[in-house]
């Protein structure tokens, strides 16, 4: 195994660094405390949603309801949590629990996660519309304060990204339960034979994913100050792309929390970079895809070369 294959985190870091250098070169104004924060603050909720997606991918499933669920969490935050904090918190906790139950059901009935989560995305979307039929609501003051805080030296967006990466790294890579969870993705039967309850583990993975999605919704409302039922629909694809960009794989429990956070930052930065290029909007989606393919090709080339040999 060569260096890059052994340290799959290197490629995402290099991609982000190259893109960041190019952005700073094009837009020197971005190279400041204020600039970096503006570039990355909207990446914080995306990073949280990407971690959530990573937890689902870790157990060999995929979540197509991320966007709708984060939108719902944002709507709850902007309405219930703001008007009646206790009740709002209960509802958010209920949403996390619903995710855990979903994980258990998917395992117990051997349902394909892709179908269940796609179906649930309409349920979440509908609930969000019931709660907030027209855009509105307001961010609870403390979330707004938290998302616009100006820590010394390093901007909030960077502090948050490091914090998210560190916490999830400890949880998923270092802790015993994290190893078990990754084991479900790697070899569920082995986990079951060694006495672990795969159902409980899957429920845990989904529950944690629900928690991070709820955090993503809250962070988003803190930034936008209000919500609407469609506010985060893009997050489904962004989160999947972020996981893969960050060195994760769809099967086998091979994921990297730090990589996922870096992937989310890279995707956000790529959009800004293309906007600074003044590329026509018709080309922007294509160009975003091209950046994604470029990184994945690079990864494949490096890992293939090291191959089984």
């Amino acid at each position: 195994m060569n260096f890059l294959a052994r340290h799959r985190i290197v490629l995402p870091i290099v991609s982000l660094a190259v893109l960041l250098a190019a952005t700073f070169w094009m837009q020197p104004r971005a190279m400041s405390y204020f600039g970096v924060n503006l570039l990355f603050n909207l990446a914080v909720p995306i990073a949280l949603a990407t971690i959530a997606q990573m937890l689902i991918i870790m157990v060999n499933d995929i979540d197509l309801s991320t966007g709708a669920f984060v939108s719902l969490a944002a709507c709850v935050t902007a309405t219930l949590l703001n008007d009646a904090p206790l009740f709002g918190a209960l509802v958010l906790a209920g949403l996390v629990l619903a995710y855990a139950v979903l994980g258990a059901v998917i395992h117990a009935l051997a349902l394909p996660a892709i179908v269940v989560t796609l179906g649930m995305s309409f349920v979440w979307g509908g609930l969000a519309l019931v709660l907030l039929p027209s855009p509105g609501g307001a961010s609870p003051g403390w979330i707004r304060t938290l998302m616009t805080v100006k820590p010394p030296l390093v901007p909030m967006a960077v502090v948050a990204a490091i914090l998210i990466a560190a916490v999830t790294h400890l949880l998923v890579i270092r802790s015993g339960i994290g190893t078990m969870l990754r084991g479900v993705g790697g070899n569920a039967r082995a986990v079951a034979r060694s006495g672990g309850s795969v159902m409980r583990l899957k429920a845990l993975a989904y529950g944690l994913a629900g928690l991070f999605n709820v955090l993503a919704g809250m962070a988003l409302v803190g930034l936008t100050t209000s919500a609407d039922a469609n506010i985060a629909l893009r997050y489904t694809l962004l989160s999947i792309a972020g996981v893969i960009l960050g060195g994760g794989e769809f099967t086998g429990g091979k994921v990297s929390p730090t990589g996922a956070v870096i992937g989310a930052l890279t995707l956000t930065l790529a959009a800004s970079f293309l906007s600074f290029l003044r590329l026509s909007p018709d080309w922007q989606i294509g160009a975003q895809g091209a950046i994604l393919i470029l990184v994945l090709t690079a990864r494949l080339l490096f890992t293939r070369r090291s191959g089984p040999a």
Partner: protein
Amino acid sequence: MRISTWLGGAALCAVAGSALAEAHMTDTSDARIALSNNYAGNSWRQAMLQSWEDVTGPAVEEGIVAAADAYTTSENQATEQAAQIQNMILQGYDAIVVNAASPTALNGAVKEACDAGIVVVSFDGIVTEPCAWRIAVDFHEMGRQEVEYLASRLPEGGNLLEIRGLAGVFVDDEISAGIHAGIEEFPQFEIAGSVHGDWAQDVAQKAVAGILPSLPEIVGVVTQGGDGYGAAEAIRAAGRDMPIIVLGNRQDEMLWWQQQRDESGYETISLSIAPGVSTLAFWVAQQILAGEEVPKDLTVPFLTVTQDTLDETLANTPEGSVANVEYSLEDAQAVIAEAQGEM
């Protein structure tokens, strides 16, 4: 002696300073203005972007402003537009003109822009953040004027058919409320039936054809734009007398009106918002940068086509498009002056 000269000089400076402030002559030739747009996928938005280019291009050449760049997000999503606005802050624009994907979800980014000293002017899709300016269309008044016109044509009143827009959208509620306010004002009219035409000719045609058999004689049709031609087709197919249909400035509607006028002397009125409102927003932003005291809420007049202006308007409207008008600096100053009078 010395001190008095110095004082005199200072006084002179103060006088000159205040005179300058009154004349609002701040130079904007270094100012850069950006257009943040969330969607370009229909004829109205295309016309809007074209108008922006047609008006800001010469303004840049004449040196009124340094740049007026238009940006459209690749997807119609509020989060993407929020990122776009934050990028504009980094690009160092002095003013951002925005047609917003959401009235509230951009407020965070708009606040960031305001805090960075950037002038934010929203139009059509306006934002609620108090630090931004809003150029809104008085849809309520548009609905009321439709009934007012019918009252001028049909003093004895009668039954009306109302064609509404897309259910659950703010604009639909506003126009309809205006129409009902007009009915209260002119009680000789009564709404005999109401259907949703979704601002599309084909949907309107189907809906009207469905409700017609259950209706008494109709003297007028009040619409929201994009639905007048469909209504006319349905009524013609049913073999009924053609009522007065208030139209919405679409090219196909005006073409039909012209044909009817030439055949039978048909008379009506047509009103809607002009996509060129983007250029009004541009001039308002320029005026704010120039130091003009502009109220935060402005109302844009809607574009009315009458019997007299039909031929001219139709000739200037491309096929499949919407009647448009571009605003000049003087138009913007007039709108601002009117709003200042109301303050």
